[in-house]
């Protein structure tokens, strides 16, 4: 069935070259509004460069990225980016960290207070609101970052292997939490990972990237019903299909 949602992000001929090294080679794709898109590729294929170019942390060598048909502008478009490394501000408490993005965007205090409470509750950190990042475990840190990102109610949420450093149990838990937030808020999500199971579990669509210079090898629609069962036959088949596409050995 064709996806009738409007286009949120349009990536056109995105190319990034560092001196002689061509990392991204003429990538084009669209992301629909409210879509959960996963991007997978072999390790070192330039996935992070891809996101960084998308967000203009790197200036692309060529190509254009449009959000709502306008060139990306971080001041105008509300984009949240969750990195693999924990990006909590160490000098702020849990609640101050969640408030950080809201006050950057000059949200009125009362509304911000309300959002902070709401997202502390959603990620289950109300009890730890006065704690500093140094006192928290890895999964709690990543929850703070996720709460901070969702609290700003971004139009687009970019995630770069956010659970790469967590053990499997915590990863499952946070993945479910993420899916709940995505459904609840209707956020458009681009999720980059090298973990195929994670991509199949989360995504509505999976873009498979090639080795450097990175291109889009193919895209796979993922209609498996939710909640997805990672040991079901369909799930395993799809996972194997993606694995075969990624294989470079």
């Amino acid at each position, binding site marked *: 069935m064709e996806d009738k949602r409007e286009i949120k992000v349009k990536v056109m001929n995105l190319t990034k070259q560092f001196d002689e090294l061509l990392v991204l080679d003429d990538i084009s794709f669209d992301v629909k509004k409210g879509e959960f898109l996963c991007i997978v590729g072999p390790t070192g294929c330039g996935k992070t460069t891809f996101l960084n170019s998308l967000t203009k942390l790197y200036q692309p060598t060529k190509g254009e990225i449009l959000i709502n048909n306008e060139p990306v502008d971080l*001041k105008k478009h509300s984009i949240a980016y969750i990195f693999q490394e924990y990006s909590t501000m160490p000098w702020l408490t849990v609640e101050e960290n969640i408030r950080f993005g809201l006050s950057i965007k000059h949200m009125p205090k009362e509304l911000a207070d309300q959002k902070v409470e709401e997202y502390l509750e959603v990620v289950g950190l109300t009890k730890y609101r006065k704690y500093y990042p140094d006192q928290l*475990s890895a999964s709690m840190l990543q929850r703070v970052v996720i709460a901070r990102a969702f609290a700003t109610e971004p139009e687009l949420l970019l995630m770069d292997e956010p659970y790469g450093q967590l053990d499997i149990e915590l990863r499952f838990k946070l993945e479910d939490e993420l899916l709940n937030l995505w459904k609840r808020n209707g956020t458009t999500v681009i999720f980059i990972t090298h973990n195929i199971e994670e991509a199949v579990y989360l995504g509505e669509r999976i873009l498979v990237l090639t080795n450097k210079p990175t291109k889009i090898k193919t895209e796979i629609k993922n209609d498996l019903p939710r909640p997805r069962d990672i040991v079901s036959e369909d799930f395993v088949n799809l996972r194997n299909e993606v694995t075969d596409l990624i294989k470079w050995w």
Partner: protein
Amino acid sequence: MESKTSRFMRKNMAAFMTIVAFMSLLLVWELVARFTNAGMFLPPASEIISKFVESFTVPIGKHRMLVHIGVSLYRVGVAFIFATIAGIFLGVSMGYSKTVEAIIKPIFEFIRPIPPLAWIPMSILWFGLGDQSKFFIIFLGCFCFITVNTYDGTKNVDHVLLGAARMLGASERQVFFRVVLPSSIPYIFAGLQIAITAGWSAVVGAEMVRSDEGVGWLIVMGMTNGNTVQIMVGMLAIGIVGYILATAMAKLEGRLCIWNQQQGI
């Protein structure tokens, strides 16, 4: 079972050892000064301590000890405040702007190795014999440490945090005040801590420039008069006050950078 005495001993072993070491040093010092020829150059510890205690009631020169300490603290305080303002400003500017770094850093690195004492003649020429030249010498003693540490702090801001703030739509001004500055604070405090001690050490040199009060003056005047007891009383005062200043600064850092030393859960 462990007896009460041995448990007390185990818990307080470090303090106990420090006291024993100190007492032994004082005892050996006392014996050497009293019963060997070294006594000609080294006054007995007991004499220094009793003179030090006495100096709080009986003036040395024009003033009692508290006034000497107060005057020196005032000089260090004024210089330290100016050094803090200038050091943080320069350190942040060099760390944040490549242009300022390119212009200022080579000049700064050239001036940095020159010890504050080497500036005494020029400071007299520029600022005269009053307090201003003393401020200047102490300022130089503090300033470099604060600048270097602030610069390092600003340079070492975690790029992930900068990226996170920018992605949330922070302007460069917001990035600076809400990420760069707070994340540099532990570095700045480390600089302030070294600087206050260095500034307090520089007070002796500063008070060599004509003065008639201050702990540095006690030493300089003791040297002029060949009064070894007074020299060592001055040294003792510098040591004690220096220790208090360093401890106070560390405590202040503990209060202001509470996030930097929390225990995990």
